[in-house]
């Protein structure tokens, strides 16, 4: 199952904040930041269980994260990935001459994967270095 024409927002969550202070290379951080929160009704269209890995793609890259149902909805058409190395695979690096990348508002699409592996932070960066 897949969803298209979504808008991806990124940002802080308290869990991501707690996890990053506890160690950005821990499993706790993966569970806090390697997730994508969907609007309740949008999620039904994906037809999968919460926690299933999904692939989020934008014009700037793609990343596999765990799916969750948002507690900050309704926000149909919007998905949210907490800030961190996972969301940074898919944000817009262009600053339009201002110095600050465009971390929010990218057009995105999501696909449920049969065999998707969510990488931890270090493996994600390692993969980036080797690409």
């Amino acid at each position, binding site marked *: 199952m897949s969803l298209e024409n979504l808008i991806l927002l990124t940002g802080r969550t308290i869990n991501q904040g707690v996890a990053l202070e506890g*160690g950005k290379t821990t499993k706790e951080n993966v569970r806090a930041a390697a997730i994508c929160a969907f609007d309740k009704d949008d999620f039904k269209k994906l037809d999968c269980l919460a926690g299933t890995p999904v692939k989020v793609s934008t014009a700037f890259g793609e990343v596999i994260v765990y799916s969750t149902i948002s507690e900050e909805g309704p926000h149909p058409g919007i998905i949210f990935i907490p800030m961190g190395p996972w969301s940074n695979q898919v944000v817009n690096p262009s600053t339009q001459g201002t110095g*600050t990348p465009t971390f929010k508002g990218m057009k995105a699409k999501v696909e449920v994967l049969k065999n998707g592996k969510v990488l931890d932070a270090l493996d994600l960066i390692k993969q980036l270095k080797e690409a």
Partner: protein
Amino acid sequence: MVEKKIKTFYDVVCPFCGTLCDDLEVDIDVKENKVIEMRNSCQIGTKKFFSSNPGSHRYLKPRIKDNGSYREVSWDEALDKAADILIKAKRPLLYGFSSTECDAQSRGVELAEILGAILDNTASVCHGPSLLAIQDVGAPLSTLGEYKNRADLVIFWGSNPVHAHPRHLGRYSEFVRGYFRTDGRNDRFIIVVDPRNTHTAQIADLYIRVNPNEDYELLNAIRATLRGTEIDEKEVSGVSKEQIQELVKILREAKFGVIFFGMGLTQTLAHHRNIDTAICLVRELNDYTKFLLCPMRGHYNVAGANQVFTWNTGYAYSIDFSRGYARYNPGEFSSVDLLMKDEVDASLIVASDPASNFPAASVKNMFKHPLISIEPHETPTSAFADVILPAAFAGIECEGTAYRMDKVPIRLRKVKDAPGECLSDKEILERLIEKVKHKLGD
């Protein structure tokens, strides 16, 4: 005399977010040099203090990467290698500085100047646009104490303090009693503007849903309506004309309004122009009532980095020293832009984690070149560094000054000693400057 096994520190300042809470209580096991209990801090602050305890994630000795694996070395050897990397580079980048105290930031400026390097801090990816806007149109600002005591209308625009500044609402903006707001929450009207119905929005009095990336048009429509122009459109950015007119009425009739704004405005398209128009709106509202604004700074001392850089160089971030004097131009000398063009050939990362927080393509280029990390514990940046210089946690293991989001300076406390051979960021940078000066023959 019974020796005290547990020492309690009062009025400790929390080194996490820009709210810079100054009422924490910390219990330290004196013998073990460990934090054993925290009171008053939020979840994140608590975690930070506990994470300073010796554990598998803390660096205790300097390390150098040799053939893919790390070996522990002496400070002298590590600093020597770091100095060599920086001197050899033709366009080195000194980045970070937001999670350390002001004296260390000041040393960073000195080092950048000696090296002819690029000097930047995390404002570059965060509230840099706010600074750009302030440089264009000024900013009506005040301090958190004033907002706590006076504001009867509080607006969070593109900001979600429940998640990012957990105690802000309880200490300054929503649930606290103020001198003129004696009934606390009931004396305030809270508005949240956000594309999502965030947890902050869920407890507000009015939630305005705005389309992502269309905040500028909404602010523009509000300003025009305030000036007495009736807009032609029926709806702007997902908000109806009636809602806009109603909102303008609320704004004008407040006794004292404040807009707290965050990444929803700085990190979306239009960046600093969102802030520019928000500032102009606030300025124009002062024709009718008292209105101010406040950027919700993320790191506890990014405001301090901007202060220190500014009073030393004239500029707050994205500074280039390559021609022997300070020049400023975000977009040209900002870290992400430089890294995207692969223009940097060595980096010194101090008290920050760009591998986690920069777009992937820039991180990839950053790791193509030597990287020195001054960091207390393992992060995705330090885990791939060529030289790791272990630092003490400022605000926990060493004193210093930090600036709150409203630019009030507060003195950080030291509640315990740093473990192992950790040194403070300031000490590390001072020793690095010595090495560099010596090698350059000064």
